[in-house]
């Protein structure tokens, strides 16, 4: 067994008992990255002759998505427009990692440009590949982080989740991914996609590692007015012991046309397993589910068009070389050349829905429906401890398959989006494999700040199954 194959908590134990040093972990990981990276392409800036050894930090390394600011270190959201951008400050989560003695890996993980996508194909560096089948996408937008953890190219990773960007790639790559409650983890230093939906969260090899990483990154931050000042429990204390009597809701609106039969079978199997472990399951209804995708693509693109306005070539990042006669021309050529097609599409959509005369019909309406979606969940959570669904309607799809059909791509997030709109926490854990050998993820949702419930259910399920122990052959 190589060190890179171990989980963080296994490595901590070995370091504590002086069996190994963090340096050994690091060199083992470097070796693995060199070996697997050419096939996976999780770390785009490791390409041009850079070596993983250069990316070393103190302690067990954590791999960071390219949209989380690390001081003096390229943070480009995998977009041409942020080429060469080195933030002058660390995101709060990075400060917390460093303060708790963790290492921060210098080379950031691949992602869809500005987190716009569900496949990591929208990266200006090209796609990351799914370690289970390199013809397939790793999911997105945190595809680099998920693929790195899955391929043992990372011990732990951070992603960000605006509509499923942690959970869906975790599901596609067979790893654990948690989207925390909105306000649980500081967004300071996360380059915003949609401010009212974004959360940073862990992507890990198992549930215990996920709880450990959450212990470090969670908590109120005075620099983020949307972070919530609620005490952070020790999440590792909620790992088990059992789920006897736990009330699970199964939303009928999630088991509909479009859900892959094979995936449905595996999810039903997982639900039965939870029942066997003592949980009580009942069908519930989330009646406004069908509006989640349109509502999301209005709110998220509106906020994105605003958040992306600052990328104009004036202060930082990319500026078009074409000689401009005035500032407007400079803006146009910089943004024209700097943004990829999906970023442009979302900019246009968002600008449109906020425009004079359309605002009420789209944005305002979407906000109202968002409230309805939220209250659907409140009703269910007044009677149930958690809701269990598939993370994604299908296993990982093939690279290129959905690039020409944005609508089909958007539907990849159909099961994950509502959670962001309602600000809830949700976790995706491995729960089986398709016949073609691709991992399938089980999504568990809970009410705000009930991450402990998620850890309990996920851990008990994980302990009773072996899915997390199966590794891709790469």
């Amino acid at each position, binding site marked *: 067994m190589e060190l890179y194959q171990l989980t963080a908590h296994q490595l901590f134990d070995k370091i504590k008992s002086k069996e190994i040093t963090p340096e050994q972990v690091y060199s083992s990981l470097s070796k693995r990255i060199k070996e697997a990276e050419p096939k996976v392409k999780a770390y785009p800036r490791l390409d041009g002759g850079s070596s993983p050894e250069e990316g070393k930090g103190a302690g067990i390394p954590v791999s960071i998505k390219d949209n989380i600011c690390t001081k003096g270190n390229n943070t480009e959201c995998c977009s041409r427009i942020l080429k060469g951008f080195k933030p*002058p*400050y660390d995101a709060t989560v990075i400060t917390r990692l460093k303060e708790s003695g963790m290492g921060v890996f210098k080379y950031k993980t691949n992602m869809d440009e500005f987190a716009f996508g569900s496949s990591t194909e929208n990266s200006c560096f090209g796609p990351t590949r799914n370690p289970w089948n390199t013809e397939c996408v790793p999911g997105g937008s945190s595809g680099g982080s998920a693929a790195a953890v899955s391929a043992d190219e990372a011990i732990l990773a951070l992603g960000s989740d605006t509509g499923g960007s942690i959970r869906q790639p975790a599901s596609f790559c067979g790893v654990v991914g948690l989207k925390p409650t909105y306000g649980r983890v500081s967004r*300071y230093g996360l380059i915003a996609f949609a401010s009212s939906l974004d959360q940073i969260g862990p992507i890990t090899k198992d549930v215990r590692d996920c709880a450990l990483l959450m212990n470090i990154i969670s908590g109120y931050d005075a620099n983020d007015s949307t972070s919530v000042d609620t005490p952070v429990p020790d999440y590792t204390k909620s790992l088990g012991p059992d789920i006897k009597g736990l009330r699970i809701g199964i939303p009928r609106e999630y088991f509909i046309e479009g859900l892959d039969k094979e995936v449905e079978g595996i999810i039903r199997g997982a639900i039965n397993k939870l029942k066997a472990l003592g949980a009580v399951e009942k069908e519930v209804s989330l009646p406004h589910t069908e509006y989640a995708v349109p509502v999301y693509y209005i709110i998220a693109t509106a906020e994105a*068009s*605003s958040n992306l*306005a600052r990328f*104009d070539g004036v202060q930082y990042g990319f500026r078009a070389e074409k000689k401009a006669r005035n500032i407007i021309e400079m803006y146009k050529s910089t943004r024209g050349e700097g943004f990829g097609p999906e970023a442009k599409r979302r900019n246009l959509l968002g600008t449109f829905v906020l425009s004079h005369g359309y605002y009420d019909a789209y944005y305002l309406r979407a906000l109202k429906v968002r409230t309805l979606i939220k209250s659907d969940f409140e009703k269910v959570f007044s009677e149930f401890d958690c809701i269990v669904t598939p993370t994604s309607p299908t296993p990982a799809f093939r690279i290129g398959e959905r690039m020409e059909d944005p609508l089909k791509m958007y539907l990849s997030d159909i099961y994950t989006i509502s959670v962001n709109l309602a600000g809830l926490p949700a976790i995706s854990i491995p729960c089986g494999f398709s016949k073609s050998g691709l991992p399938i993820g089980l999504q568990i949702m809970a009410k705000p700040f009930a991450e402990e419930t998620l850890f309990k259910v996920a851990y008990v399920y994980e302990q009773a199954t072996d899915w997390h122990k199966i590794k891709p052959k790469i």
Partner: protein
Amino acid sequence: MEYETVIGLEVHLQLNTRTKAFCGCSTEFGNEPNTQVCPVCLGFPGSLPVYNKQALDYAIKVALALNCRVQEFTKFDRKHYYYPDLPKNYQISQYDLPLARKGFLDIYLEGNNKRIGITRVHMEEDAGKLIHRQETSLVDLNRAGVPLLEIVSEPDINSPQEAYEYLTSLKSILEYLDVSDCDMEKGSLRCDANISIREKGVVTLGTKTELKNMNSFKAVKDALAFEVERQRKELAAGNKISQETRLWDPKEQKTITMRTKEEAKDYRYFPEPDLPPFIIKDERVNEILRGIPELPKTKTLRFMKEYGLSEYDAKILVATKNNADYSEERLRQGKNKKSVANWLIGPLSGIASSNNIEISEIKISTGDFLELIELVESKQLISNLRGKEVLAEMFATGKPPALIIQEKNLAQISDEGVLEKEIEEVIEENAKSVEDFKAGKANALMFLVGQVMKKSKGKANPKVVQEMLKGRLSHA
């Protein structure tokens, strides 16, 4: 055709908080460009705004002083436009739920009170500054993120003079609250104006133009006066007024088109997701309300009532809070309120303005000041004119008035025995004037008094001299 002018004013006010609206950077004015900046006010990716509580308190204070209703629920919005001095390419502002609404401000005009409605008061952040060179334009972001208040009036203002009065009264209130430097030259107070004209008696508003780039209250008045005339001429010539934004050109003393309605921007306002809406509790509002000092208008009325001052005098004394406090201390203790007011407004203000300071900065104690007035007015120890010289000396040396009079031998001579000699001499030397007086020319007497004053080197009490001369000449 008789026209009526309709004006609404938008005032942008920089709040003098120590730090910026959404970060901890200093708001100090006039430092090296881009030395008071951080990732937040530079709009760097990933940075987030955190609202400055002090700025909110100041904003509430202004809203209350302008008799507005502070809204319980308020939020920030993003206002989008691309400009290099705006690092995020949106400004954090307030759109449909401003901090406060429906207030008013009373102005005095030729002895009449007029109430100008305040539509809204809202919070926002300032942009940076562009410095244009020949080949390049430079951006200074020291000012970016400084907290601003926008105070919007109703179109209740009907003349450029009223606009001027509104601004003066507003500035005076703001200075009382000590929330802003209110310095138009430094840009801590800026004013845009909306103006239209309509036929007298017509209810609907005419097409308005928006005026910008006025950097003094006088410029606002001049620009409005120009625009009234321009619009009047356009209408008289049968033309329509086009809705547009016009710039005031202070050199040419005229307004010029900046952009037309077709070029009007769509700001795509939407709620700022980085700053949750906030609830302003009554307790907070009440606490701020308790901290609001007596404002100029109330003070003016009280000064008029308590000290028997004219409205004119009272308004001068209360124009700034420091001066009002300084004046009131002296008025309260003085015997003759009217003469204390005259000395404050006259000689003391004279000293202040020639030294370029406020009267409140003049370090003459209340006791000394009142003693001087006493010496001049009731004891008549020195003349009014000498009194002013003594005051100047008091300002320069800090000595009490009696000492200065003694040292400089300035006391007035009222002793008839002492003055006898000078009077006899003057009568002898000015036979012609004596004749004139006797012939009934009253002016001649004043001339003779003047001559005695001259002989006494100004120390003779003119009233005594006059009486003596009258007596002497009518008996001769």
